[in-house]
């Protein structure tokens, strides 16, 4: 049977990588005695896939996965048992059973919402934050340096930015909410947006990103963009 569910990743566990999370989930399922189904063949691998990966260092309220299990289980039972077997900082919610023919999550994924917190070297006011964000959303092109296989190249990320708005600014902490495209081919990276924002605020510093939601199209059981 196939279960679709979301998990949150908070606190220190945000510093684990995508590969770490895969391992942690596989082991947690075994501890919960909810064995993952394995693919057949020479090198069997568990049938567990993610809507998308979360960058190391980001927190999230809802990372969606689909798992094939060897045993039938109710969504409530699934959530309860896996949560009891997960380390502090990871927790499942919103589980449901996927019918046959339910499309894969990565095909339905369209966007992601983030809260970005900038810890700036110099103080930033709410007005400055607002105008810096407008400078991004109101321009035709937002050129950033993007790392590609053939080196660092300039790229226009404006089409990937769907929404952006200031939330708060006090002294050296500026917070913004953004929505960016995200699908199997790629999309807006919170880090790229944060760098563009630092540039327009004419300051430097570090940032943290929290993914509030992944947005899908094609199923009313999953969060939508609007």
């Amino acid at each position, binding site marked *: 049977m196939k279960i679709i569910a979301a998990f949150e990743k908070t*606190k*220190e*566990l945000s*510093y*684990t*990588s995508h*590969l*770490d999370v895969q*391992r*942690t989930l*596989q*082991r*947690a*399922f*075994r*501890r919960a005695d909810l*064995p993952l189904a*394995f693919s057949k063949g020479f090198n069997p691998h568990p049938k567990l896939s993610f809507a998308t990966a979360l960058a*190391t*260092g980001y927190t999230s309220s809802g990372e969606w996965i689909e798992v094939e299990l060897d045993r039938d289980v109710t969504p409530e039972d699934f959530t309860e048992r896996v949560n009891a*077997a*997960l*380390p*502090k*900082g990871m927790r499942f919610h919103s589980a449901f059973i996927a019918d046959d023919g339910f499309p894969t999550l990565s095909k339905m994924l369209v966007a992601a919402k983030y809260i970005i917190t900038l810890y700036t070297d110099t103080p930033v006011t709410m007005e400055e934050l607002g105008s810096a964000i407008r400078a991004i959303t109101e321009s035709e092109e937002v050129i950033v340096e993007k790392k590609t296989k053939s080196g660092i190249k300039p790229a226009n990320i404006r089409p990937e930015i769907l929404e952006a708005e200031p939330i708060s600014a006090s002294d050296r902490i500026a917070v913004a909410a953004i929505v960016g495209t995200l699908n199997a081919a790629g999309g807006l990276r919170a880090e790229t947006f944060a760098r563009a924002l630092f540039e327009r605020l004419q300051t430097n510093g*570090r940032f*943290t990103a929290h993914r509030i939601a992944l947005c899908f199209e094609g199923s009313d059981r999953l969060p939508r963009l609007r």
Partner: protein
Amino acid sequence: MDMLLSRVEKPARYIGSEWNMERKEVYDFRFALCFPDVYEIGMSHLGSRILYRVLNDMDGVYCERCYAPWTDMEQALRAFHEPLFTLETKSPLKDFDIVGFSLLYEMCYTNVLTMLELSGIPFLSSERDESNPLIVAGGPCTVNPEPIADIVDVILIGDGEELEPELVECVRQAKREGISKAAMLERLAGIKGVYIPSFYRPVYENGRYARTERLNAHAPEHPVRRVVRDLDTAKYIGRQLVPHMQIVHDRVAVEVMRGCTRGCRFCQAGYIYRPVRERTEETLLRQTRDLVTCTGYDEVSLLSLSTGDYSELHTLLPRIIDDMAEQKVSVSLPSLRIDSLLKDDLEKMQTVRKGGLTFAPEAGTQRMRDVINKNVTEDDLLRAVTDAFTAGWCGVKLYFMIGLPTETDEDVVGIAELAGKVSNAFYRLPKDKRGSGFRVTVSVSTFVPKPWTAFQWCAQDRQEEIVRKQQLLKTALKGVRGAELHCHPSVLSVLEAVFSRGDRRLNSVLIDAYQRGCRFDSWAEHFKPDAWAEAFEANGLRMDEYAHRERAIDEPLPWETVDVLVTPAYLKREWAKAQQAKTTKDCRQGCNGCFGEHCEDYCRV
């Protein structure tokens, strides 16, 4: 914390919060279990896993972990003036009652200093008082405690399962009574397996170690290595920690036995873990099941120095494999002996997952193998690899050493010849009976003479000689189909030889080298041979004297202040036999008398 973690390459090394991590609210005694290497290595260490359980099972004791910070974290901690912290509660080491280090490798000693310095703890025990944590060290390196004797307050020699709780109880009681550090050390000196270095003073004559003077009447003349008599009932890991990031040995570890009866003359572990003690089949089955259930791991490793020698192996192995196959858990044996390997076991193991196959003939010719008492013949090896190749394996890794005592060029070339015969054994099989992509990996390390072995008197080959032998081997391996040569760099093994058989004067060299920037010396990218050379020079000592000088058979040896049960007289007999290429039988076939007068009390094989 975010400030630090966002600045390092692998933040998961420092976050803790692993599955099965101990969380405690109420405790009155804090123990920092420290490992002077990175998380991935320290977390793989079996002894630390056992001690974490043993200590946390004690009432009111909270044992937390701390690993050496990688250089990026060290820089971040210094930049923000933050102390090094434990993984469980993120507390600085200064807040602990005991800070204990596991010493498995001499080339980690500089990392001990990093960890002390980043905690604001003075390096020398003489500079620390009651306000500092008690600095303790244990692990195999402490059979020669002298090179760190000025730094550590209390040195533990031997098995820790019973020793560590006794240490903790003694320190806890002393603290309750509020007695001085000196008085506490006197009490600790009475615990079997404890060596208090400050109660002993080495004397040097003509630039060499001459003898040790005992300074305190409470200290035994020769502290004796601690041995857990009954391994079967001894505490084990219980709930093994499951790391987030991949570690070196990322699997359930089951220790089937401790000690080894073979008596390979170069092998320090073979001497210092005697006598052999086995766990029963039932205990092992139960521990395996429990560990798999509470960790969710899908791989189990049956550990020991020589698992193939476990007396019930051929009934245990099928039972464990069947038991685990149901849960799709694979079973591996890291240390198969060539002569103990059975075809059935191979086939059985292959049904679960095909792991790598490794053999350690250690030397290329029979004469050389007789010198080191590695009682394995060429026929044994060729039979074993042929079995493996027939069972579907198409790669094998062979471990060798060069620079062994009495070694000639013929012995070095013999390594290539043996690899050639292994290669032929593969290609002799009919094409439809063998796999493709054959590889024979020849891994060659440089011999390091270790204390408490039959070779503790030997001179290590000089670096130029090792390089020449490596070159000789490289040439000889040309034309062997599928052969691949891995040689370990020889520069580091000189320093390793120095510290293995070092005396107390090396403490100041160590601190000096650390201050010249030496860190993570076992990592090629960090090893600074020039800084080490300067540190020796500045302290008026020569590496050459320690590494490349043959000791006279009656010369006093700095590590003989401690008693590891195996007697110097036995080692002398073994050294004499080695020089005549005479072998010594496995002690399961009859006692060789290695414990001398300790035999009655400690060895009941």
